[in-house]
């Protein structure tokens, strides 16, 4: 796994003293891991990724302390997937809504499944 390349070239990625990425919540780690995997599969080059991420991170209105770093990350991943023709923004957005509905409809203790959205 080309983790070093990932780390070195992801602008602004929060890392620990040991140089490992730091995640505040699991979805951040999942987004990170998916991006690493997609890069490994050749869906995009790291230069392409870094450019899109950098654009999101430097967009006006972003948190100065980097608190929304992974929001930028996910937005960047979304738009890159749309640009590369993997999935349109409409498709991504519709499915996000379904997942949100599925979570709301799932009682505590049960697995959140997409079918729960009804």
């Amino acid at each position, binding site marked *: 796994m080309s983790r070093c390349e990932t780390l070195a070239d992801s602008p602004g990625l929060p890392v620990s003293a040991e140089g490992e990425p730091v*995640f505040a919540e699991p979805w951040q780690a999942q987004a990170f891991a998916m991006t690493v995997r997609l890069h490994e599969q050749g869906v995009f080059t790291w230069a392409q990724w870094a450019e899109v991420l950098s654009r999101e991170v430097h967009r006006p209105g972003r948190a100065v302390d980097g608190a929304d770093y992974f929001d930028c990350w996910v937005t960047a991943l979304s738009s890159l997937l749309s640009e590369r023709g993997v999935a349109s923004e409409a498709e991504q957005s519709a499915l996000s809504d379904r997942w949100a509905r599925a*979570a709301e409809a799932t009682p505590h203790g049960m697995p959140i499944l997409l079918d729960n959205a009804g």
Partner: protein
Amino acid sequence: MSHDHDHDDHHHHHDNHFSPMEARVRALETILTQKGLIDPKAIDAIVETYETKIGPRNGARVVAKAWAEPDFADWLKHDATAAIASLGYTGRQGEHMRAVFNDAETHNLVVCTLCSCYPWSVLGLPPVWYKAPAYRSRAVIDPRGVLAEFGVTLPEGRKIRVWDSTAELRYLVVPERPAGTDGLDQEALADLVTRDAMIGTGLALEPEAEA
């Protein structure tokens, strides 16, 4: 006013809720899996390489302080949310915390679910196994067996209490302070507190084992 009461219940917090980012990440995962571009197992494996390295240091500091300062331990026991917040660790969603103390009579074990009930702010990332359906159901039915799989054997006669976190209340297990740690400062004590110890699937490390 029973009608109003029902109405309130209906509009009470949902058990599960995805933030827009969580929902978006789920959606991307679904799309990419369907297209054969990622395998969820490969994603879990990548996540797993990080989760153990992002030590749950906040929670460990809470436990170390409770071991070293009886007043703090008392506060933690009675109002964990405030005691933990006093150290600057607050949950993003403002959820309540309850600290459950292991002692000579009782061992505490926390189970969660596949939903979002896990105190990130204190414990860091949840282990992948914690989200597995098997862990939750087995922890309730056979906690001793689950603990044995984690290499934890409790003294004969010790009770096990299983706590099921909810969207509004999350648990932190305060493990027993190991023997031979009288001379350690709080920072050294915190190094003995593992994430698993704060979930109840482990015990605090012995000072020798840690070195």
